């Protein structure tokens, strides 16, 4: 069943405003999505009625806050189809999730001479923690190259795999190009030689069905704010046996079983990795974001976004001077492009003058920009509340801007 986009738009208060005298057109969804009213109200409701520290309090408010907090974890269990609810760990975001894994799993299990494989389209968050680990351990970072279309070179990946490969940390969907990577194949091949696989799901979890058991990934990390949820909150999934084998990330409250000055024993999952008072209000509000996705259905959301992607790709491609960056066969609703003779910053600023919000620059993927020999791109990314008429406005503005240098 197709979605009623007008009704959905009604749930997002932020969309109903003017920017620079024009109706706001928000096409920066790959950076962060807007929040439905249910999420905003849940956050305010929590602080008005339920605010309390969780898990240890003996009073009613603490009990309520704990139940609502843990309810989000349960929602995530079905959202990702994890085997156990304790495999869901709350973090600050995708970046912290990767750093957590590098600092705990990485420090314990990666040794000198071992190899970690990432790809040429990674976000800096999935490059730098591994560079730091490799430097510390004397391990080697290997990079899967990509084609001009922005697709992984799987043959090159095959040739990189060996008994030295300990971890493959790969982006599920590229934030810059929109490419959906063949992660099932990558996971199967990595497992065949005994390597573990971490999926960076920052861009995939909001658009695709991500079933961690059917994918069989060892880790999955993502951020709540790209799934209509609050900022400063993320999720790390890990298989129980792996999480159990890992040392804790940070020490403090919540994560301990018993502390004496001689020895501390650590708490069970998931608390072992959630030291200190967590981001309770945002976790509870995130539950409402997951309910928003479940209510509309990921398949219906994806179908709408695919329609927008196809429409925008066809219309923008007609513009003289339009240079698409990333033309993979399998993409989510992200269009990166340049205008011949123009800097992406300038294009972005002129679109903003028309009320259109896009992202410009290197999108935290500098090595990818180097691969394409460009400084940056303009990136328009679509979400469930965007419409074809908004794309018409984008196309009209881009046409006008492109004419400056492409007569």
């Amino acid at each position, binding site marked *: 069943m197709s979605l009623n986009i007008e009704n959905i738009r009604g749930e997002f208060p932020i969309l109903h405003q003017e920017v620079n*005298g024009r109706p706001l057109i928000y096409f920066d969804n790959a950076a962060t999505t807007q929040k439905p009213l249910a999420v905003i109200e849940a956050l305010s409701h929590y602080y008005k009625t339920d605010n309390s520290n969780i898990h240890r309090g003996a009073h009613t408010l603490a009990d309520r806050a704990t139940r609502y907090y843990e309810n989000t974890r349960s929602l995530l269990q079905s959202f990702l189809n994890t085997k156990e609810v304790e495999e869901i760990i709350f973090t600050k975001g995708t970046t912290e999730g990767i750093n957590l894994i590098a600092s705990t799993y990485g420090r314990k299990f990666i040794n000198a001479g071992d190899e970690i494989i990432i790809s040429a389209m990674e976000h800096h968050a999935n490059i730098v923690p591994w560079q730091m680990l490799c430097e510390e351990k004397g391990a080697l970072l290997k990079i899967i190259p990509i084609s001009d279309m922005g697709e992984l070179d799987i043959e090159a990946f095959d040739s990189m795999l060996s008994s030295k490969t300990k971890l493959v940390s790969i982006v599920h969907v590229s934030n810059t190009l929109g490419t959906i990577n063949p992660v099932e194949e990558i996971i199967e091949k990595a497992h065949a030689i005994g390597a573990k696989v971490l999926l960076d799901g920052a861009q995939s979890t909001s658009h695709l069905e991500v079933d961690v058991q059917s994918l069989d990934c060892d880790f999955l990390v993502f951020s709540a704010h790209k799934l209509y949820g609050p900022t400063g909150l993320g999720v790390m999934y890990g298989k129980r046996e792996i999480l159990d084998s890992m040392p804790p990330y940070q020490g403090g409250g919540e994560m301990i079983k018993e502390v004496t000055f001689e020895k501390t024993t650590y708490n069970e999952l998931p608390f072992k990795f959630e030291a200190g008072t967590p981001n309770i209000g945002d976790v509870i509000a995130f539950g409402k974001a997951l309910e928003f996705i479940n209510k509309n259905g990921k398949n219906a959301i994806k179908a709408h976004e695919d329609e927008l992607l196809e429409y925008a790709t066809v219309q923008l491609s007609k513009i003289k001077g339009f240079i698409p960056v990333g033309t993979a066969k399998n993409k989510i609703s992200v269009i990166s492009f340049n205008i011949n003779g123009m*800097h992406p*910053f300038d294009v972005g600023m*002129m679109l903003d*003058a028309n009320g259109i919000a896009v992202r410009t620059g290197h999108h935290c993927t500098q090595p990818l920009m180097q691969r394409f020999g460009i400084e940056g791109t303009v990136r328009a990314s679509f979400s469930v509340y965007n419409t074809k008429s908004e794309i018409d406005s984008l196309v009209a503005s881009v046409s006008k801007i492109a004419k*400056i240098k492409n007569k």
Partner: protein
Amino acid sequence: MSIQEIQNEIIDEFQILGDDRESTIFYIMELGGKLPEMPEEDKSEENIIKGCQSKVWLTASESNNKINYLADSNTDITKGLISLLIRVLSGRSPEEIIKAELDFIEKIGMGNIIGSQRSNGLAAMIKQMKLYAIAYQAKLNA
């Protein structure tokens, strides 16, 4: 014309454009197009102004106690911004440049037009132009 007179001229020009953000940006880009060419060899790492998100190269030379600036950028809007600064400051004595209060930037509402990132870049350009003036004045006084 004095520095202040040129600034007033710029303020008048921007006033004609009114509140229309799009035409203002187009106008700034147009100004950038008129910036005198900078020799390719001057677009070097050492002439890049730090603190700008886009690339901006700036050089200064002195003759008859006047400083002449040349600049370029890889983005047209930034080129337009620096062309305004050159129009106000180039061909002046180090003393005039050091003392110059560039109130036209605030008066034309540049901060709102270009946003905070580019405003920081613009401040970095002004700082570098003044640093050149201080250096030349020190040299002239030596």
